[in-house]
């Protein structure tokens, strides 16, 4: 079993190298059969890695404790779901997952684009498979998931494993890492297409459409992965928060930010032939930051609660990252002429200009996070003195930037392409601005005096109004012209331009998430000791400890408290926080008691019993508006899926001023 798994990975490594060589030889040696052979090698790599992954999962499920990885990350008592998720519970297995996802993406990208971009595909394959060779090389020669436990010259088997980290035995953790990996790894595909377009001087914008679609899909996975991680932190880590500015969290956020910037600015290239260099920089930055994120998580470069332990792969990752960075710089700088803009900017007050502006602010935000993450490492290297950069830095730097970005989210749709006159701007801004000011003023008079929160709520109202007005005006227009009910008109409006209106829905979701984040300005937290039957008042809740029980199952022992939550004398919830002690790993975990509501969550952590046994200790949190983060995510998901649906009407866009090639008129194809 272990030999077959290791062999499959070794063969995948060899075939990856073959795919690189065959594709390049096929393209530059004008031997098409070699290029086709390279394509087939990509499919073969996927088959081999699927076999390897299948064997590892089989070993985990069946409890083959001769394999070191299985022994270190699973035990007999774990449920089959968590035995499966142990695949990515450790360094070696998660690198195998990385490789398998990359192989899957590569196979799909090659299959769907092999005829469409025949000239470019060998280069795309070379880039994808070089990365593949790097990762399969790591799990072949450095960190194999199929190492067996040895005593002397013999293979040994132990009766049981050490089990999966209890913090990972949670349903969101079953899908959070694969989702993030789908996002991280997926960023390689747009990068490969972008670089291949440079190398082959790909004419036209066809490849951009393909790249953009890939970028949306991977952005969606990143968003889902990050949000699942936040949900996991919120419900499992028992600290009443969802984001701690940990280096690994930051590492997942940075490529998301650059991918977001790319998804905006790529429209400029599609429609105007502008910002080509910028897009190359963004797509490359997203890929490089994904690799950097993987490096931070896996090499112990920065101290993080999420990171895998120190491992011997730091030099490999650093070398790969630096090599990729140098190659990207060379590729872009030697092709500046090819990347020359085809159009001119008609006005500073235009959608084009606002796109670049929003991109710059996004990148500034990304840089601030990158700086905060790496500064302690740089400082330690330079001065041999350790520094700490924690949440206060990020809040001080990122909150103003985030508020400005929120403002730009509302401004973008109000500014026309090409040029906006002062009069049209006044018309467009008047109502949303008044609504924003009214909401902020109303909340201010209502007793909220937190300036950043008031600004955020005002801006959220401003942006929401702009979006709803866009839907309203468009739907009303269709309703009037085509005599259809308003909901059907709204559906028709969205279908006619799914990208535009799907994008607005995404913005609406982001606004909802911002409202949720803003709620944290009003969090309440107390620590309270309660005896059986005792009631305490917290916020507007009366909380009574009704029972404490304990028990055990095959996996863990637990102590379980039951708290009656009353409001105005009426019981509104029964919360049951718990402490668990996992038998295999002898590690402890707490399960929070949580009452979710649109206005606020009540979050209870059971912390143990006082030494005299008279009272139990609880931490109570009142967390306003948190639910809007998760609601916002669902809206983002829905909006992104709409963006992926082809529009009913296809548009082609004229260049404002074309340099060097003939201008095409705008046409509409139904």
């Amino acid at each position, binding site marked *: 079993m272990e030999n077959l798994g290791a062999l499959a990975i070794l063969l995948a490594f060899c075939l990856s190298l073959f795919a690189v060589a065959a594709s390049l030889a096929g393209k530059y040696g004008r031997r098409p059969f070699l290029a086709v052979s390279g394509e087939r090698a990509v499919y073969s790599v996927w088959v081999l890695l699927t076999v390897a992954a299948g064997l590892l999962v089989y070993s985990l499920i069946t409890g083959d404790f001769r394999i070191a990885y299985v022994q270190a990350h699973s035990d007999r008592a774990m449920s089959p779901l968590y035995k499966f998720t142990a695949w990515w519970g450790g360094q070696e297995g998660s690198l195998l997952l990385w490789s398998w996802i990359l192989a899957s993406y590569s196979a799909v990208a090659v299959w769907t684009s092999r005829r469409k971009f025949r000239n470019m595909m060998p280069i795309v394959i070379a880039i994808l498979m070089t990365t593949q060779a790097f990762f399969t090389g790591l799990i072949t020669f450095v960190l194999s998931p199929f190492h067996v436990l040895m005593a002397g010259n013999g293979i040994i088997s132990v009766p049981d494993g050490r089990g999966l980290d209890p913090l990972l035995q949670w349903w969101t953790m079953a899908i959070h890492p694969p989702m993030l990996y789908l996002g991280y790894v997926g960023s390689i595909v747009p990068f490969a297409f972008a670089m291949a377009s440079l190398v082959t001087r790909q004419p036209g914008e066809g490849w951009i459409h393909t790249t953009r679609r890939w970028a949306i899909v991977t952005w969606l996975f990143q968003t889902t992965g990050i949000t699942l991680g936040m949900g996991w932190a919120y419900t499992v880590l028992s600290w009443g928060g969802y984001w701690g500015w940990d280096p690994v969290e930051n590492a997942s956020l940075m490529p998301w930010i650059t991918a977001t910037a790319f998804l905006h600015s790529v429209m400029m290239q599609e429609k105007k032939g502008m910002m080509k260099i910028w897009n190359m920089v963004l797509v490359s930055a997203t890929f490089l930051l994904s690799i950097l994120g993987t490096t931070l998580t896996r090499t112990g470069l920065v101290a993080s609660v999420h990171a895998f332990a120190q491992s011997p792969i730091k030099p490999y990752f650093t070398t790969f990252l630096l090599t990729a960075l140098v190659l990207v710089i060379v590729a872009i700088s030697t092709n500046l002429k090819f990347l020359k803009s085809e159009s001119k900017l008609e006005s500073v007050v235009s959608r084009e200009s606002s796109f670049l502006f929003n991109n710059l602010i996004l990148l500034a935000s990304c840089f601030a996070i990158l700086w905060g993450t790496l500064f302690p490492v740089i400082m330690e290297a330079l001065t041999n003195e350790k520094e700490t950069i924690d949440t206060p830095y990020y809040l001080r730097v990122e909150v103003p930037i985030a508020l400005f970005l929120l403002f730009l989210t509302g401004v973008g749709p109000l500014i026309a392409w090409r040029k906006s006159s002062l009069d*049209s701007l006044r018309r467009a801004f008047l109502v949303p601005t008044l609504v924003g000011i009214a909401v902020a003023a109303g909340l201010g008079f209502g007793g909220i005096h937190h300036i950043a929160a008031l600004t955020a709520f005002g801006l959220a109202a401003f942006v929401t109004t702009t979006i709803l007005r866009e839907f309203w005006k468009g739907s009303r227009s269709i309703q009037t012209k085509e005599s259809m009910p308003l909901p059907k008109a709204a559906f028709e409006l969205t279908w006619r331009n799914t990208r535009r209106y799907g994008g607005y829905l995404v913005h609406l979701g982001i606004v909802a998430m911002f409202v949720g984040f803003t709620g944290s300005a009003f969090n309440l937290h107390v620590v309270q000791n309660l*005896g059986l039957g005792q009631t305490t008042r917290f916020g507007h809740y009366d909380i009574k400890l009704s029972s404490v029980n304990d028990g055990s199952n095959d996996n863990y022992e637990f102590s379980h408290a039951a708290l009656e939550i009353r409001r105005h004398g009426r019981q509104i919830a029964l919360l049951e926080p718990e402490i668990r002690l996992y038998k295999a790993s002898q590690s402890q975990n707490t399960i929070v008691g949580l009452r979710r509501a649109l206005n606020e969550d009540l979050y209870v952590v059971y912390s143990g019993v006082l*030494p005299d046994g008279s009272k139990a200790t609880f931490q109570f949190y009142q967390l306003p508006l948190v639910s809007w983060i998760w609601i916002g995510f669902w809206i983002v998901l829905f909006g992104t899926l709409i963006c992926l649906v082809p529009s009913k009407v296809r548009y082609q866009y004229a260049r404002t001023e074309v340099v060097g090639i003939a201008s095409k008129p705008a046409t509409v194809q139904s």
Partner: protein
Amino acid sequence: MPVSLRRCSLRLVATFFLSFACLLAQDPTSVMTPGVARVGDHLACRCGVCRNTVATCPMLHCEYSGPMRARIKGMQDQGVTDQNIIKTVVKEQGVVALAAPPAEGWGLFTWVMPGVALLLGFLVYSWWVRRNRPEPKAVSDADRALLDRFRGQIETEMGESDTAGGGPNGKK
């Protein structure tokens, strides 16, 4: 107080007691005061698990923040100023004890660089705008009169088409 909690299984209670007895010997609800929170906001929790400050670390049994809060309270009770408490901690542990580097020496870079990046961004933006602006074309009086005549109509039609769910700018 009710003693029913004693009825819980001895095995489990013993496990938890062993874990928490020392930490809960002092009532955890008594340590945090506004004064402690004020100082704790400047100090990083160095437990290695969270990224909070001593004031905001939510872990009841935190090995770092718990004792540090008690120490801050003790020093405040003795009349030591907030600034001197922070200085004492930094003297013992180095600047790593601070939640964010001070805005002096090398630490200044922490705070300056995001601003520098933003400034560079604005410079790039203005450079790009200047570079991509077309040369202004001379408009004759006749053209200008014609433009003025139709400007109102153009604005109206652009507005209408913008609401019809047209192209990216609403202009088909």
